């Protein structure tokens, strides 16, 4: 393989990987399992009355602070939704139990403490809002900052 073939191959594979991430990150995916409920996880926080959001972060995640701000903004008028941010390295036990492999990973739990789904990567505002609406089944009053 000559040098240009190598460069072309690297750029092609990287482009495919980049596009894969672009189209898969930030979207609601299916829950991993219903085997473990929030109460059994020993998160150290209480379950929200309507829903609970857990965001796993690491200190090397550049987009995590922005996602945290986005979620806080979205739920600020709804006291029934609890939001907790967890450092995945400090709680590696929890990260492993919940199959968290990258940051941010945002898990949504319903009022019974069962996982309803998760978003890996930075979610779009509509995606977050729709997910919460689906879980809580209550139309949220959201101040549209845009």
């Amino acid at each position, binding site marked *: 393989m000559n040098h*240009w073939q190598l460069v072309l191959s690297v750029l092609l*594979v990287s482009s495919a990987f*980049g596009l894969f*991430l672009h189209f898969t990150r930030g979207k609601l995916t299916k829950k991993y399992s219903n085997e473990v409920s929030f109460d059994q996880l020993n998160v150290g926080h209480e379950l929200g009355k309507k829903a609970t959001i857990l965001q796993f972060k690491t200190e090397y*995640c550049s987009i995590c*602070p922005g996602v945290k701000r986005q979620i806080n903004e979205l739920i600020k008028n709804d006291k029934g939704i609890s939001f907790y941010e967890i450092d995945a390295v400090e709680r590696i036990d929890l990260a492993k139990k919940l199959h968290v492999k*990258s*940051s*941010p990973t945002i898990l949504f739990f319903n009022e019974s403490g069962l996982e309803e789904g998760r978003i890996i990567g930075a979610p779009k505002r509509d995606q977050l809002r729709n997910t919460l609406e689906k879980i809580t089944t209550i139309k949220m009053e959201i101040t549209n900052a845009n």
Partner: protein
Amino acid sequence: MQIDARGPRFGAAITLVVLLLVIYFDSPILLAIQTLVWAIGAFAGPHKSPYGYIFKTLVKPRLKSVGELENVKPPQFAQLVGFIFGVVGLVGVAIGSPTVFLIATAFALAAAFLNAVFNFCLGCEMYLLLVRARLIR
């Protein structure tokens, strides 16, 4: 510490060009220079590397919009990963293995390409996996 988030992406674009030149000219010297840039970025911070300095003095003053700020640690982690690839490539040269040199440079090229084009967050995708695999704390 917070830095302009556009700086590391600008640095990745320059790195991409440098690494293309490394492969085209088969140049360990260029890779050594790039590895030095990564070392400064990894150990002193990306804002103190030559590319960070160029961004701060020549590019940023010409940008009209105000950039978002980000923590310095994620781009610093990416610089460290680049530094490791650079060292591996140079070790390849030292032991007379052009294959190691080319493969390490190709990995660094892929990371720089993903960062420059897709704004790929290496720390988001890799750090936790490395911790889980017990390769780092």
